[in-house]
């Protein structure tokens, strides 16, 4: 829990929040706000790259964030593109 609070501080103090799953006892640090993602989280991992397959997930994630930043997710085509990217991310990646 202490560590999770340090995560919030690490990313500037007002970025993201900590959620707790009372059933499993797991703690999540979650950042969902688009501006927090594009101004804090994404630049951080551009500067400090991940190693392994997760790099690809990060690149896809970044692409979706950029689409959302330009409001593309409000158009049918944009949303379709995001759906396509999403279907080949993380455990769905072929």
């Amino acid at each position: 829990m202490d560590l999770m609070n340090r995560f919030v501080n690490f990313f500037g103090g007002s970025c993201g929040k900590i959620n707790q799953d009372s059933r499993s006892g797991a703690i999540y640090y979650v950042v969902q706000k688009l501006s927090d993602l594009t101004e804090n989280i994404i630049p951080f991992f551009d500067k400090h790259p991940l190693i392994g397959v997760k790099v690809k997930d990060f690149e896809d994630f970044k692409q979706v964030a950029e689409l959302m930043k330009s409001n593309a997710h409000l158009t049918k085509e944009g949303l379709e593109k995001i759906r396509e990217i999403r279907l080949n991310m993380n455990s769905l990646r072929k």
Partner: protein
Amino acid sequence: MELVFSIRLHIKDLAALKSIQAFFSGIGKIYIHEKVGEATFRVSSVKELELIVNHFDKYPLITQKWSDFMLFKQALGLIKCKKHLTLDGLQEIVNIKASMNLEISSPDFPNTVPVIRPSVPKINSSIDPFWMAGFVAGDGCFSVHLKKSPSSKLGETA
């Protein structure tokens, strides 16, 4: 009795596992478990485990795994001086094991008294950015959620 240090990854990340093995100057072995899609880097010889322990002494862990590491080191110390070959020594190691990871007690050792789990020291220095990148590569997730949105023309939003 055997002590094991291991890292298990999805088989897609075999290359990362190989570079970890190279980082530790080629010690241990990598086992590929094709059926379940996993690859495991495993170190179990006492001599090679010393290299692992030296590394984490120099670069301390900062989560609960620090406590597991301290217990692991205690057990390694007992094995190094052959204590595990005596019944008392063996029980001592079982007592350590009982406090490690997700351990549940073994019916084979009814006299087990779990040792006290050392608590992770409080660190005041700020988190190292490369630690953050490594931690997220291991335990983090970048995901895209689509949800129903009645207010949007499309009825759905990202």
